[in-house]
């Protein structure tokens, strides 16, 4: 009796193939969104006329209408709806949904193929990074001189908030979105994700979210920065409603994606791929989404309470109604600190994966790598209040939170050990992807050390809320995280697009971005130590030098990113066709041909060893080289190997 027999169900009684679902795409989605938004707006105008919170209620309900209408117009609800009315999707419908033989059009539909979703995520991340980066350029231009007057205070305050939120959301999805969706199923030898429709749902929810987020610009902006602290959020204009609705949509998308990726990794690994044979990048992606699963509901809950405050006159965060601003901060940072590791872990894991390939060596101490990731995941949910040392909340807890925060440096050091150990005596091929590993090491050690200063309570009293903090988290999230994502992109670009990434412009972009990055944020450390607060539209003349340095560096990053964008688009369109396995890697995604067939593997692979057997005999069995007679055994053998 086979598995198929056990799970045999009644034959599906579907309707005729085709129908309206085959005509749905992004166009009908936008149409549906606009129509439903208008309907919701008019209805709520009647219902909530002349109430205290009328503007906020109308804004919020309209945005919810847009999101629902957009998703319905995209066809996100087709499957459940057809099932409800008793005409479940047929095999032909499913094949259509997977985007078989649809050309470019499938990228603008509710397509379930994980490879399509991965590319969609990649483009979405690039759009968001472009938007956030443009805002960064505006911010830095304003700060080029003490009183430039380039931006007004209201515009500036909104801009730092929307820049921050855009970048945080983009970096959260920048590795687990494109590469988690495209690469992970291939890497574990699966034909698709566990829940392909949820996969498409998570992506298109993000697309629905973007107009909501950016509508803040037309609704008075957000006055409170990306953290959305109350009570200033309570007094903000309708732009804050955009913020709240966008966060809720994003949290739903993350939950859906997290459940999907976790299920896929746990249940759909190829036969023989035990946990010790699972590539480290898969661990990284899994750690990231598992961490996001408890983290983002906190943020969502925080925003839902804020919705109640703003729209219905609740008082969760309003002191004179018995509320507590510190409640918001706790909920926010319960998301906010795990979130930085949601961003960082998969980026670093991708670099570990490709370091083994480009050093032509096994990953150094797979066990330390896995335990470090697990250690970071575990500790990162216990450190949130180090963002609140200076808030005055629970001074007695400052010591314990300092302890947990400093303990994270131990597993983080383990990640460094694994990467440095893998480089040791390797045959290092300095491709763009490998250069990103080096840049990450440089940036992350600076980001990590400055993080230790901030974990120290007395130092944090001084540095909290200053440009020093801004520089620190850009070093970790951008210097380590984004650099890791660029490395991952450079590494998997041949598999994802079937073409090689252009070399020259890649290196030009690398050096522009990395040098510009270090100039920008070393300048920012400087003004932070001198005493410049964050989020100020103008500043004292004493900070002029550091700010000018930062702005010049930022322009270098901007130009470098444009070069990278050019490189990606040009290579994507007419780059040199990529061979099946251009890097000589041993993971499964490189065993499928270009272009990748819809079902990935004609025959599902069986795994007999891990993917890091570089320099080891190919046959399965003991991989340890026997010690030659006469040579010392034990640790001495290891030391000999180090020489």
């Amino acid at each position, binding site marked *: 009796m086979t598995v198929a027999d056990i799970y045999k169900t009644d034959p599906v009684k579907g309707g005729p193939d085709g129908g309206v679902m085959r005509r749905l795409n992004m166009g009908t989605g936008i149409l549906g969104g606009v129509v439903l938004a208008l309907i919701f707006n008019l209805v709520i105008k009647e219902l909530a006329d002349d109430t205290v919170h009328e503007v906020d209620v109308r804004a919020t309900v309209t945005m919810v209408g847009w999101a629902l209408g957009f998703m319905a117009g995209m066809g996100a609800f087709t499957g459940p709806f057809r099932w409800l009315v008793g005409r479940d999707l047929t095999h032909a419908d499913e094949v259509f949904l997977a985007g078989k033989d649809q050309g470019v059009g499938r990228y603008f539909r509710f397509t379930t193929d994980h490879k399509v979703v991965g590319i969609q995520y990649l483009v979405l991340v690039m759009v968001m990074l472009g938007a956030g980066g443009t805002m960064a350029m505006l911010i830095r231009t304003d700060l080029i001189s003490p009183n430039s007057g380039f931006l007004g205070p209201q515009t500036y*305050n909104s801009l730092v908030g929307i820049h921050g939120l855009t970048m945080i959301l983009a970096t959260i999805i920048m590795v687990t979105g494109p590469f988690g969706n495209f690469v992970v199923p291939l890497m574990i030898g699966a034909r698709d994700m566990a829940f392909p429709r949820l996969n498409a749902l998570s992506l298109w929810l993000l697309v629905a979210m973007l107009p909501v987020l950016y509508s803040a610009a037309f609704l008075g902006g957000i006055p409170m920065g990306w953290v959305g602290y109350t009570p200033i959020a309570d007094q903000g204009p309708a732009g804050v409603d955009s913020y709240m609705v966008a966060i809720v949509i994003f949290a739903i998308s993350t939950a859906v994606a997290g459940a999907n990726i976790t299920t896929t990794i746990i249940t759909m690994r190829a036969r023989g791929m035990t946990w010790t044979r699972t590539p480290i990048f898969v661990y990284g992606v899994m750690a990231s989404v598992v961490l996001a699963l408890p983290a983002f509901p906190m943020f969502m809950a925080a925003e839902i309470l804020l919705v109640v405050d703003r729209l219905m006159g609740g008082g969760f965060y309003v002191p004179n109604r018995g509320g507590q*601003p510190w409640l918001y901060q706790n909920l926010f940072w319960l998301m906010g600190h795990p979130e930085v590791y949601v961003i960082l872990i998969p980026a670093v894991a991708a670099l570990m994966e490709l370091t083994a390939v480009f050093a032509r060596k096994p990953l150094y101490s797979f066990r330390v790598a896995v335990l470090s990731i697990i250690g970071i995941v575990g500790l990162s949910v216990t450190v949130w209040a180090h963002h609140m040392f*200076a808030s005055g909340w629970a001074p007695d807890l400052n010591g314990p939170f300092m302890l947990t925060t*400093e303990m994270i440096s131990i597993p983080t050091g383990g990640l460094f050990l694994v990467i440095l150990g893998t*480089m*040791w005596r390797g045959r290092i091929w300095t491709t763009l992807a490998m250069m990103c590993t080096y840049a990450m090491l440089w940036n992350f050690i*600076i980001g990590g050390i400055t993080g230790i200063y901030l974990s120290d309570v007395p130092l944090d009293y001084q540095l*909290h809320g200053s440009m020093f903090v801004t520089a620190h988290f850009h070093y970790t999230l951008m210097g380590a995280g984004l650099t890791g994502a660029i490395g991952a992109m450079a590494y998997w670009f041949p598999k994802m697009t079937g073409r090689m990434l252009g070399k020259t412009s890649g290196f030009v972009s690398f050096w522009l971005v990395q040098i510009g990055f270090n100039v920008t944020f070393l300048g920012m450390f400087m003004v932070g130590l001198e*005493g410049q607060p964050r989020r100020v539209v103008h500043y004292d003349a004493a900070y002029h030098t550091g700010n000018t340095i930062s702005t010049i560096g930022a322009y270098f990053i901007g130009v470098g990113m444009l070069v990278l964008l050019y490189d990606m688009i040009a290579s994507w369109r007419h780059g040199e066709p990529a061979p099946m396995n251009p890097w000589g890697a041993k993971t499964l995604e490189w065993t499928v041909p270009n272009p990748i067939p819809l079902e990935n593997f004609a025959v599902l692979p069986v795994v007999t060893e891990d993917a890091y057997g570089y320099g080891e005999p190919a046959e399965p069995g003991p991989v340890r080289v026997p010690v030659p007679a006469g040579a010392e055994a034990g640790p001495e053998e290891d030391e000999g190997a*180090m020489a």
Partner: protein
Amino acid sequence: MSETSTTQRRVPWWRSQDARVIAALWAGFTILGVIFALIVPHHLMGPSASNTMTEVERTFTAFSVASAPVAAVVWTLGVYSLWRWRRRGDWTPDDPDGPPLRGHGWLNGVWMFASSALCLFLLIWGLAALSSVDSPATASTPLEIDVTGQQWVWTFTYPDDGNVESDQLYLPIDRPVVFRVTSYDVIHSFWVPAMGIKVDANPGMTTTTQTTPDRLGIYEVKCAELCGLLHADMETDAHVVSSQDFEAWTASQGGS
């Protein structure tokens, strides 16, 4: 393992070229880092105006010095591997792989032990510094000042001196001072960069911070939490004056 490394095993590892160059690089990076740590942060943070800021600068310098050898390990191994083990030209399928090192138990142990020891050092230092800046001053009765933030000004009230109110901060030198901080509207953050003190001003709640100013002069008071339109302008001056001048000032403000 290849023949080369069998031959190399006769040379003790600590006398190999790798080890020597790495040690030299590491020492060089460490020395540069320590010099940087001793000079630059102190220079940027400027002269300290309180015992708290002295502690802050001391901690910053100590952590920087302690970090220099750690960062030097990473930079050394990175630079050395790029210089020594970089492949010239592209990889081809016929190229030999690197040695299959899958980790050494002793190195993992040493690494973890070293990072745990460093972490313990940070923690002990941090707790000691924390108790020194957070402990209420006992030498003399502290001066109590009520600080109130509102969009976008600071107000300082001196309850000990007949509730004198001022939009500028006046402090007598060498007398401990306790700030009781609150806000009328949104969250602000009371920050005197030269004194190394900062605490949020929360509506409906009072938070405290304390220090002892020990240097005459005029310093800046800033808001360190985005508080709306004119956040960047929410600044005023802190005057540290002699105790006679302080009494003269309270008297001139109508205080007792």
